[in-house]
């Protein structure tokens, strides 16, 4: 059900019919908090083009992670419609969401959550092993991604034997393993210093652009937004776009 990425050469061709990677239509998320309620997202509308990179900028607690979680099928919305790569996931059951996550989205979490007892390469391949296994193609893809991410010589290292930036790159590779329509980066550089953060952003941009994959990059750091095609601001659950 993956929509094939368009060749970049014909990308400008507007006649080519392409579904947006993400379409949020009046999405609302309310967390119950005892008797009160926390409105984490208030009627969010957002469209991310099929190969667009959007920076999501906002202060802490503004609803960035909530938005990503809903877009990635990790959290269900209180109201509104969510369409990812042409797939309407609004009414999906837990089971359908599980396969949706397995096939259609990639995540890079705020805290790098690699499997501690697996090597860098195995941390990529694990994505394939969780679903319907493809075996050899997945291994080739993992090797290719590690190569692109400059980790070829670290493939056999455990996360504990990698630097913070290297771990972040492994997490990026893992997010790309299932050839997703949309990759969600939740503060991918917050744990890195400025220079390393910029290197990682550079890498994310080249990976996204070479594949024509859409991405949302969450940050509260205005300095890295220029790596993205455009920025969307969020304050107290309200999007400005």
């Amino acid at each position, binding site marked *: 059900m993956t929509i094939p990425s368009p060749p970049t050469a014909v990308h400008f061709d507007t006649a080519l019919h392409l579904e947006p990677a993400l379409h949020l239509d009046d999405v609302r998320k309310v967390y119950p908090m005892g008797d009160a309620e926390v409105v984490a997202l208030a009627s969010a509308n957002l469209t991310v083009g099929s190969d667009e990179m959007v920076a999501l900028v906002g202060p802490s607690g503004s609803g960035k*992670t909530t938005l*990503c*979680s809903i877009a*990635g099928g*990790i*959290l269900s919305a209180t109201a509104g419609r969510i369409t990812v790569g042409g797939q309407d996931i609004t009414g999906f059951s837990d*089971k359908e969401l*599980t*396969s*949706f*996550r*397995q*096939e259609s989205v990639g*995540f890079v*979490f*705020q*805290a790098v*959550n690699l*499997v*501690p*007892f*697996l090597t860098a390469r*195995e941390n990529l391949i*694990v*994505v394939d*092993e*969780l*679903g319907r296994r493809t075996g050899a193609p997945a291994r080739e893809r993992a090797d290719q991604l590690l190569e692109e991410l400059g980790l070829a010589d670290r493939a056999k290292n455990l996360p504990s034997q990698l630097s913070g930036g290297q771990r972040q790159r492994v997490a990026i590779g*893992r997010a790309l393993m*299932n050839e997703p329509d949309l990759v969600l980066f*939740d*503060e991918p550089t917050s744990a890195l210093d400025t220079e390393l953060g910029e290197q990682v952003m550079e890498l994310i941009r080249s990976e996204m652009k070479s594949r024509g994959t859409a991405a949302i990059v969450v940050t509260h750091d205005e300095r890295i937004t220029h790596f993205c095609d455009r920025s969307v601001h969020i304050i107290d659950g309200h999007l400005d776009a």
Partner: protein
Amino acid sequence: MILALRELRRRPGRFATAGVILTLIAVLLMFLGGLLDGLIQASTGAVRAQDADVIVYSDNAQASLARSRIEPEVRETIELLSAVTEVGGLGVVQLGARVPDAGPRDLAGVALFGYELAPTGVPDTPADGEVYADEVLRADGVEAGMELLLGPARSPVTVIGFVSDTSFNGQGALWASPATWRDVLDANRPDARVSGEVFQALVVRGDAEPDDLAAMIDRITAEYHTASATRSLSVPDAVNAIPGVEEQQGTFNQIIGVTIVIALVVIALFFSLITVERAGLYGVLKALGARSSTIFAGLVAQAVVVTLIASSIAAALTIALDAALPPGSLPLAVSADRIITSVLLLLVAAVVGCSFSLRRVLRIDPASAIGSSS
């Protein structure tokens, strides 16, 4: 699943505690089972060895040879039945035997049988004064050609050969002629002496189903000998009716059951701890698209592998223990059947134990993976 097994390989240390405890439990289980089998074997061997369809006791004997008496007239009545093809008398007396070269107080417990129809593995009735000895008596120093002195009267019998698995009440059997049995009984247990052609029980071969044959015999003896009616049992029923056998089995099976429950609790606790510890990891895996069933299958796979490894070590230890114990010191009978049964029970305990973590695995929210909280 691959992930779970890889974790087992990469981090065996995490599973060592559970593995060691399970190994000990498995040893206990196999040891208890072997002991039960050995005890039952030692108390039922002589009856199990009977090559017959039916064993006939007197009605009031509660299937105990010592309490049972069959008069010759009763035997004649039974022999009249057309379905009965062969009838043999059987009697036993339990005594202490003096073994040459052993200390004067080192009595070997023996059960001297007088028999007419040879049990399985026992040759035909020997000459008076001669006996075939059960192999377990070798542990007491009994050898072929030896003269044993039985009971307070020191009745002499000569061992002319060995037979196996014919113990009675935990004592090694000596197989002798009916006359020898009567003489020894007469000399050592004057209170229990039997005259002439009286036996304690009869073994009967016939050409009807054992249960039918038993019913026929009991019906005819009840009709013609109201005062000395019989109670006949097929050999398997007679084995179970031996006083103490069912009680022993019941007690041991209860202990074995409790041991299995302990194994189950250990596995349940261990794996629910592991699940709690791994909640973060499981959240991430779910966010990456792992189904709960995949995660739970991995947990079960780990429990099964740990149990199998523990069981293998335990089986090896039990077999080694069996080999190391001097023969005759403990009635331990280690068999493949018992080991396999123990392993299967432990595997069931492992799977059931894991299932206590199922709810927790199901409840882990993929959303726990995202954000700064994890």
